[in-house]
């Protein structure tokens, strides 16, 4: 009997370990484990090897994009586009720009112009159109794309499922209806990649995957589990409760990470003390983008790339908006920023440093202030 299942997980609850173990338990049939980011794909790969010494013959680990390209686009691309597709190009705004209208708005190539709508001049497919192309291929080939897929993979595991959006969700719906067992794990609080600018299913952006399944996939028999993975093995209680404040509508996660070090919890520190702090605690620096200046001699990652990773300590270079929220938790932090901040905080086992030239009189619940003893 085939099953579809969505597990909502808290940060640090061991999603990857869980999904990898589930996948390794499948001895029959072929298993796909897929996820949005390369970093997480690598993490899954490492986890499989850690548990099983090698990647079993029946398990394939692939990013969502590379999976779509190989099994979604290529087999039946002929239904839409004959020329040799030379891979994919990552775009971070709506693709297929045509010209700027004199009234100021941008005009894009329509779907009818297949080549220009989906592809660059060098025949690379735009990342934001990839799943749409797959969906259309499947339509034009009478479902051959999904049929082929479901005969290749008896089990499909999707990690970080909250990252799927737009036509990805249409594909998800089709997969629910196929013979493959679809298992999804995700944390709706951690939507950091919004590369989809399609208006398709806009209302299910920002981590509303659960609503999507409940509203749009009624007949699909997808079980939703919010219990199994709500316990953080990574963050200590202090980090858990601080991060939970970002999402008051979710059940606050609990922690079973009870290690005590000399520096635990959330700390604000002044810019002038950054060097000392780095030297004292060797945290991983997390920043908004490559434009943010950091100390290059310490390990550094962008917020988005840090997803799925674990560090003992992190030092966050916050945006101004993050600070606004820290000072006033009622500040309406936009979903993307909120999510990024949540991801950044929940990377750490023991301590989270946040750079802010605070006033000595400031008091915030759950936040300590770093004062180097000089």
């Amino acid at each position: 009997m085939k099953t579809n299942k969505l597990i909502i997980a808290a940060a640090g609850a061991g999603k990857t370990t869980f999904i990898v173990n589930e996948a390794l338990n499948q001895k029959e049939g072929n298993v796909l484990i897929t996820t949005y980011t390369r970093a997480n794909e690598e993490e899954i790969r490492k986890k499989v090897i850690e548990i099983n010494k090698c990647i079993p013959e029946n398990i394939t680990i692939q990013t969502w994009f590379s999976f779509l390209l190989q099994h979604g686009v290529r087999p039946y691309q002929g239904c839409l586009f004959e020329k040799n597709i030379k891979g994919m190009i990552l775009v971070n705004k709506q693709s297929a720009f045509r010209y700027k209208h004199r009234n100021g708005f941008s005009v894009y190539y329509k779907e009818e112009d297949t080549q220009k709508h989906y592809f660059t001049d060098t025949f690379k497919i735009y990342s934001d159109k990839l799943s749409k192309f797959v969906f259309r291929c499947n339509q034009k080939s009478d479902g051959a794309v999904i049929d082929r897929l479901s005969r290749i993979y008896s089990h499909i595991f999707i990690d970080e499922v909250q990252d799927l959006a737009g036509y990805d969700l249409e594909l998800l719906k089709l997969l629910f209806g196929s013979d493959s067992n679809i298992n999804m794990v995700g944390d709706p609080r951690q939507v950091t990649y919004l590369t989809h600018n399609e208006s398709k299913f806009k209302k299910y952006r920002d981590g509303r995957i659960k609503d999507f399944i409940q509203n749009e996939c009624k007949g699909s028999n997808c079980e939703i589990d919010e219990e199994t993975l709500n316990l953080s093995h990574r963050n200590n209680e202090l980090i858990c409760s601080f991060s939970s404040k970002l999402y008051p509508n979710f059940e606050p996660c609990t922690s079973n990470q009870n290690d005590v070090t000399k520096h635990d919890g959330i700390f604000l520190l002044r810019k002038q003390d950054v060097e000392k702090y780095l030297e004292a605690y060797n945290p991983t620096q997390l920043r908004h983008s490559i434009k943010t200046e950091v100390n290059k001699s310490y390990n550094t990652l962008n917020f988005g790339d840090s997803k799925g990773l674990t560090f003992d300590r992190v030092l966050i270079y916050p945006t101004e908006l993050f600070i606004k929220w820290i000072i006033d938790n009622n500040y309406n932090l936009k979903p993307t920023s909120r999510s990024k901040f949540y991801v950044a905080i929940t990377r750490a086992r023991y301590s989270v440093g946040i750079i802010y030239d605070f006033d000595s009189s400031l008091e915030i619940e759950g936040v300590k202030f770093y004062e180097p003893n000089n």
Partner: protein
Amino acid sequence: MKISRIKIENFKCFETFDLTLNDGLNILVGNNEAGKSTILEAIHLALTGLFNGRYLKNELTQYLFNNQVVAKYLYDLDQGKAAIPPYILIEIFISGEDLPSFEGNDNSEKIKECGIALKIAFDDKYQAEFEQLIKNENVKTLPIEYYNIFLTSFARENITARSIPIKSAMIDSSSNRYRNGSDIYISRIVRDNLEPEDIVDISQAHRKMRDNFMRDASIKAINEKIKQSVKISDKNVELSVELLSKNAWENSLITYLDDVPFHYIGKGEQCIVKTELALAHKKSKEASLILIEEPENHLSYSKLNQFVHSIKKHCEDKQIIISTHNSFVANKLGLDNLILLNDSKTLRLNDLKLETKSFFEKISGYDTLRLILCKKAILVEGDSDELVLQKAYMFENDGKLPIEDGIDVISVGTSFLRFLEIAEKINKLVVVVTDNDGDVEAVQKKYENYLGDKAKSHIKICFDGTVDTGDLMVGSKPFNYNTLEPKMLKVNDWQDFNTILETSFDRLDDLHKYMKQNKTACALKVFDTEEEMEFPDYIIEAIK
């Protein structure tokens, strides 16, 4: 998981070729040069990357390409016309639902199918160099150095031959082409029979053997000696066992049969052993395909019988493609499995009209094969006509028998049209020699599809356009003056025939009667005589 179809473009003798295959046994029958081996080579190449027992990758040559296609390309270039460099395409279509990862519509038919495509084509990454070459207008041969081999599934995925779950074993006893590395086939076949864990075990054992070898006191002593005496460089020189290549064990192991190394046993025995090994292949996740080239070579009649027997036994669960020009092999293995090959065209009995098919199923099958295997066929009604035709041919060709020129004279009784149906389908050169039996119109009606407007360039119908009459009666019926014997008497002085036939009839009518009643005996006399004689025009026309 079987090969259901193969398509070939521009490979060797084929410009385009398309063949549907049976799941079990397939017998390719055709004359020399018909392309039987090329089909086997193409399939084997696509499935293994091997050509003549070696990896083709670094041995691409222009000679793999169809001559006409290359000539046309070079001509066009020479004329300053835009010409696209020719490519070779071999497509293998795979039946069944159990290989979904190879499914897609990237095939020349643009249809949803499962399969692989091997393409030998110009590699775009050499665009710049090639442009320079064209500018210099100095292209006299195919620019093969800018070509590459591309192996893809119908899902547009680059694949390696290793990942194709159909393992192909080529059994070729016809030549000693493989004197170097003669064991590549047998070791492949043996290896294909092994499960992955067996292979790991073997390579471990091999490694151990090497370690023991190196640890042996005498080797140590020798290496010490070398170290002392050889001063090639400041590096250490040492004897060891080759372990570098990935499959070192394969290179140092050879197969023995009753203590005789495989390549020392007779060619015929080799052929049987290879076949038996390939037939024994039974890995669950893989299918196997056995390609056998002209098994009749090197095999005695009884061995051939044994061979055919074991093929027959296994063809239920294995796909086998055999090329042969031996009518015994073809006939024994069943006409249903025959694929007749001529001039890049193929024909199966199933492609024929139902009644034609059942006709050929009833007759022995030899005659069908004779038609396929000859260069040109002359169809006659009976044995006596056959002998006279042969004689006429010898007369015109310095005593050479027609068969020496690849021309086969076949007596077909009244079944001319059935043979013509085959000939028409495979573009076979055929001449029909028939009596007019006193009714030219009836003959013209019978062969209307091959005469006049509908004449086919490769099919010739020969008969006498004149209706002869006379008074002779045989019993109550008038004598038929329009068969070969009276026509022979008509063009010769009839009394000369008394000499030829060693008879002494005084009257022409008596000779007519005698010849009618002793057709074959007379024909034999005609065949054996050294006397000169004339032949009717339509006979001369037939042997031109």
